[in-house]
């Protein structure tokens, strides 16, 4: 049985979500803790702003919008991949240990090497995420038993690392201080050079994701059914792990751990276009940034003149949505 979406519906959805995303980008530039009037924002964008407005728009709002776009897209796509691959609607990229690996690397960097600049932790976080996911896939991906072993390995290694990370932060107050900020997630850490360097990884992950879509459709009914259709399940498994690692690892490296986006976006997207991965993946790529930017904007305005970190707001935006969905429908087939 092949899974399809009516083409018209898919394209319409993509168009609508893209339009919503455009609105979110504009809002992200226009709104913030500093109540700049729209003409001032436009002046600043055109290069005519005062020192204060130029700083706010070009040094703060533009970078965080870009980070929100990249991280949101990466997390949305990674979440869709994880849920399709594990055939479990509760799967989340964090299950592979991405967040725990990044946090561990950041904690080591801060306590052993004294890293403190937000930009300095981007590459250690990325490296940590990559190494841990590799370890998890070595331990958990071999042998039969499907994705359950992989998830268990991710949960287990994640637990070990989170214990060690807590140990490091409880004995080093500076590390604790830095980590409690990093843990909340923020779109302001990475500079534009880091973004430029990380973007290719995200692009590679996205391309790989699209290539995996037809195979994932075939795996929806089980590995055996897929094999009988000629799909190389082992290769798809490796491809998914690599793609999720690149996408979720890059997102965590530039924005800190923003949980929940990867979990809820695929649900919402599947609700709109159904379970065909060829439609779910592109739409997740677009819907992810909508949620991340919306959460960031909300964080900027709700307690102005201060801000609430985006990682904190996302759960309060996403969880009620997820709970509402769970209450409306019974377990939905992927």
């Amino acid at each position: 049985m092949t899974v399809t979406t009516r083409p018209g519906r898919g394209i319409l959805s993509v168009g609508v979500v893209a339009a919503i995303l455009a609105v979110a980008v504009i809002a992200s530039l226009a709104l913030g803790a500093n109540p700049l009037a729209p003409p001032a924002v436009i002046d600043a964008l055109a290069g005519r702003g005062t020192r204060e407005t130029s700083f706010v728009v070009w040094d703060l709002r533009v970078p965080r919008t870009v980070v929100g776009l990249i991280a949101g897209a990466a997390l949305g796509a990674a979440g869709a991949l994880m849920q399709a691959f594990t055939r479990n609607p509760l799967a989340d990229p964090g299950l592979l240990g991405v967040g725990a690996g990044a946090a561990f690397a950041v904690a080591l960097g801060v306590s052993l090497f004294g890293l403190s600049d937000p930009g300095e932790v981007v590459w250690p976080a990325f490296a940590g995420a990559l190494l841990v996911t590799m370890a998890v896939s070595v331990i958990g991906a071999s042998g039969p038993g499907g994705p359950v072993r992989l998830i268990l390995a991710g949960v287990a290694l994640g637990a070990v690392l989170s214990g060690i990370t807590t140990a490091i932060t409880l004995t080093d107050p500076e590390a604790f201080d830095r980590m409690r900020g990093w843990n909340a997630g923020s779109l302001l850490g990475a500079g534009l050079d880091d973004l430029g360097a990380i973007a290719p990884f995200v692009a590679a992950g996205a391309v790989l994701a699209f290539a995996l879509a037809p195979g994932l459709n075939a795996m929806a009914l089980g590995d055996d059914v897929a094999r009988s259709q000629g799909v190389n399940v082992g290769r798809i498994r490796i491809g998914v792990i690599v793609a999720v690692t690149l996408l979720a690892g890059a997102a965590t490296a530039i924005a800190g751990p923003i949980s929940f986006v990867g979990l809820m976006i695929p649900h919402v997207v599947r609700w709109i276009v159904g379970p065909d991965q060829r439609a779910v993946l592109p739409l997740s790529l677009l819907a992810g940034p909508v949620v991340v930017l919306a959460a960031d904007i909300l964080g900027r305005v709700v307690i102005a003149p201060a801000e609430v970190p985006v990682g904190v707001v996302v759960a309060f935006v996403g969880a009620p949505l997820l709970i509402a969905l769970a209450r409306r429908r019974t377990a939905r087939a992927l």
Partner: protein
Amino acid sequence: MSPRSRLVLASAAGMIALALAGCTAAAAPESASGSAAPGTRSVEHARGTADVPDQPERVVTLEPLELDTAVAIGITPVGAAVAGNVTELPSYLGVSDVAPVGTVPEPDLEAIAALKPDLILGTESRHSELYEQLSAIAPTVFIASQADPWRENATLIGEALGREDEVAGLLTGVDDECARLKSEYALDGQTVQLIRPRDETTLSLYGPVSFAGSLLECVGFTIPDREWEDGLQADLSPENIASATADHVFVTAADVDDRSAIPAAVASAFPDATLVDTSTWVSGVGPKGAEAVLGDIERYLSANR
């Protein structure tokens, strides 16, 4: 069983556990009333009354303010709780040979007992659950909260150490130094801002009731009005950094010589900001810390006369 009665029973189970735990919890020991034994005197503190030795010789402090005050009047404690397990005692205090007894949030009872102290100083808001155990080792005096005005806490600490007059003298000394700087530099009407960078999206400003803020104001500066949380501090997004303008801007940092640690928002809005040491201006609450802060302020004023 309907969901609702299930929920009721769940709450009941929890409440029973709570009630039993609370009821059998050891109540705070009755304050020893009546006359104290010879060689000791009674001190009233946040957890009642304690009989402390007239001249304590082996003191253990569990709070940075207590350590600072003791050192300021010449008593070197035998043991002190440190901020974290890999940090040593603050260098501005200039003491060594003080055994670490665990961390400020989690003191190590056995290490304290092994030092055989004759007086323990702690904080009710942090060490509340340890009071009975600490009292079993040695007479224990608790200040109510480290967030209370530091001069009041220092006075109680001085009383516990049997040196009220010396502490009072130190506090008067701080006031006198403030008055001297105030008259020498005539800072009326000049505004000041103390900024502490927290993370990428938060900058903290310190208000007139905070430790360093109160010292800045007693020297004659004015911290511009805003909505302070308990008068202590206010958080700001980097987008609003311009609203923190003042004639003089101080930024806290771990290393005062490393200007790269200043966040971009602050550096662009206030390129002439002065770096000050977090370990004294933020964490160095106490008479010696006040001495260090006033020293920094004087050096700044004379360099920018």
